[in-house]
């Protein structure tokens, strides 16, 4: 005698949350199939405070109109930590998100979250990955105390751990990174770039600020420096990476090697069905600092991937090698293949 197996729970279509550093990238993301775009103001209130990047208030208003006109949402990252005693710029950023009718704001600092919850009760609050809330107790605290609606999970959990977190915090929404640069440190806590440059990624908004980066071509290849420290040397035939200390190649015991992490990009296309089954509400693509071409290619690939899974079809075979850091890809902590 056989026992009837219970039917698997129906899959919930995840929202595709895509990066945009400029108005042109916002349009590219939406035209390529983004459900939602996340952007930042042109100042230190967001963690991609790079030269020539981000949105003025006028551009943000126009971007939100463009997105809403096409059924897409806009989230605004105000995800740096206000300078001690000078929170006004951050408070103004949150107020502007409210008045510009952004669909939500992504916050990291607990003081700023408290301010937003008290002064902007109708503004949807998301907890940034920079807050590093990775377990049900931490997540419940933010939800119960401040009404956080969605948590962006740090890139340290396996798929199985994500499923477990989701089962214990339901119906709170979770968002996970599915593609792009990897931050291997405790997010929002890393001080490596601050040590080398005097500027904090978590307060000033730029890890490895471009003003402190130098590349020098020599007959052997290219040398990258950050704040005067040599952090890598790439041979002419070797793909280069970002000039971050966590992906620097250092000499220890007479051997040059990547002590923390190799230049590589997260790519979860192959495990999308697992992440969807884990009950994740939204998939986030990293890369507000990248160009329109990157945004279009990655958003299109993940649009096709998610649609294929939801339609019960096999995953599309899409090669994203050409836009990855160091020409390498990994599923990172989701599979922890190094263990």
């Amino acid at each position: 005698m056989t026992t009837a197996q219970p039917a698997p729970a129906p899959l919930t279509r995840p929202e595709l949350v895509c990066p945009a550093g400029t108005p042109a990238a916002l349009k590219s993301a939406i035209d390529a199939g983004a459900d939602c775009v996340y952007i930042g103001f042109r100042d230190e209130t967001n963690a991609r405070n790079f030269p020539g990047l981000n949105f003025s208030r006028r551009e943000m208003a126009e971007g939100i109109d463009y997105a809403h006109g096409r059924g897409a949402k806009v989230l605004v990252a105000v995800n740096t930590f206000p300078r001690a005693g000078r929170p006004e710029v951050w408070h103004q950023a949150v107020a502007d998100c409210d008045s510009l009718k952004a669909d939500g704001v992504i916050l990291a600092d607990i003081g700023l979250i408290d301010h937003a919850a008290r002064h902007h009760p109708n503004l949807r609050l998301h907890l940034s990955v920079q807050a590093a809330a990775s377990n049900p107790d931490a997540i419940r605290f933010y939800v119960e105390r401040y009404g956080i609606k969605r948590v962006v999970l740090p890139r340290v959990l396996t798929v199985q751990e994500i499923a477990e977190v989701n089962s214990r915090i339901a119906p709170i929404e979770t968002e996970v990174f599915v593609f792009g640069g990897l931050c291997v440190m405790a997010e929002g806590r890393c001080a490596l770039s601050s040590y080398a440059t005097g500027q904090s990624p978590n307060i000033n908004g730029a890890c490895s600020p471009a003003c402190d980066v130098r590349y020098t071509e020599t007959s052997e290849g290219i040398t990258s420096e950050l704040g005067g420290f040599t952090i890598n040397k790439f041979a002419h035939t070797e793909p280069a990476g970002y000039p971050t200390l966590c992906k620097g190649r250092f000499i220890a015991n007479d051997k040059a090697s990547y002590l923390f992490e190799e230049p590589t990009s997260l790519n979860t296309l192959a495990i999308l069905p697992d992440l969807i089954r884990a009950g994740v509400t939204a998939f986030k693509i990293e890369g507000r600092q990248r160009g329109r071409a990157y945004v279009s290619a990655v958003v299109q690939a993940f649009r096709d991937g998610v649609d294929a899974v939801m339609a019960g079809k096999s995953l599309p075979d899409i090669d994203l090698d050409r836009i990855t850091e160091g020409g390498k890809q990994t599923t990172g902590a989701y599979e922890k293949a190094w263990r």
Partner: protein
Amino acid sequence: MRPGQVRGNVKPVQPPFSPVLLLGMALKPVRPALLQPVFDGVLKMLRRRHPDILDRMADYASKPVCINPVDLPFVILLDPNPDDPRLTVRREIDPQEVAATIHGPLDVLLALAEGKVDGDALFFTRRLVIEGDTEVVVALRNAIDGAGIDLINDISAELGPLARPFRTCASAAVDLLGRIQDDIETLRTALIAPAVKDSNAHNARITQLEAELKVLRKAARRGGVA
């Protein structure tokens, strides 16, 4: 030597064998001043259609950038001062004159300007090399990428009644360049085929020797003889 400056006689990017390289050779006798009106027109068009570029570059007004199409016999000097921006074509530029230089083949630079390729990806794969002040280069890259430039559309919009013939000519020119590029690639492959064959044979031999060496080393570590 300034920080980030290319050291010695290093050629930052090798020009690819392309129609542009051949065109560049043909343009060698031409004085850059004769090409200046083209660049004046391009700047005028960019200012009118994409004012946000200079707006995003406002913090770098006093930092001129050299754009070096490595397959052409001249370079372009961009002075992003919003009150008096300039795009000047020159035979060469002393690195001391500029804050930074961007080296790359013309087709790559144009694709980057139109947002068809990602600047970081070009850098990772070394098809683009930057020299000097990284900050101003990042700002320029972001400003241009964010402008949504489409050269054929932008130029057409400036030409009034000549827009349609221009589009037709531009489309035909792009097709023709593509065909020439294909032919050149065929020619290049044929020319280097004997060298590639030799190289492949050498690589196979090296791989075989490496495998033999590995066996010998392993045996030596055990104190025996292979």
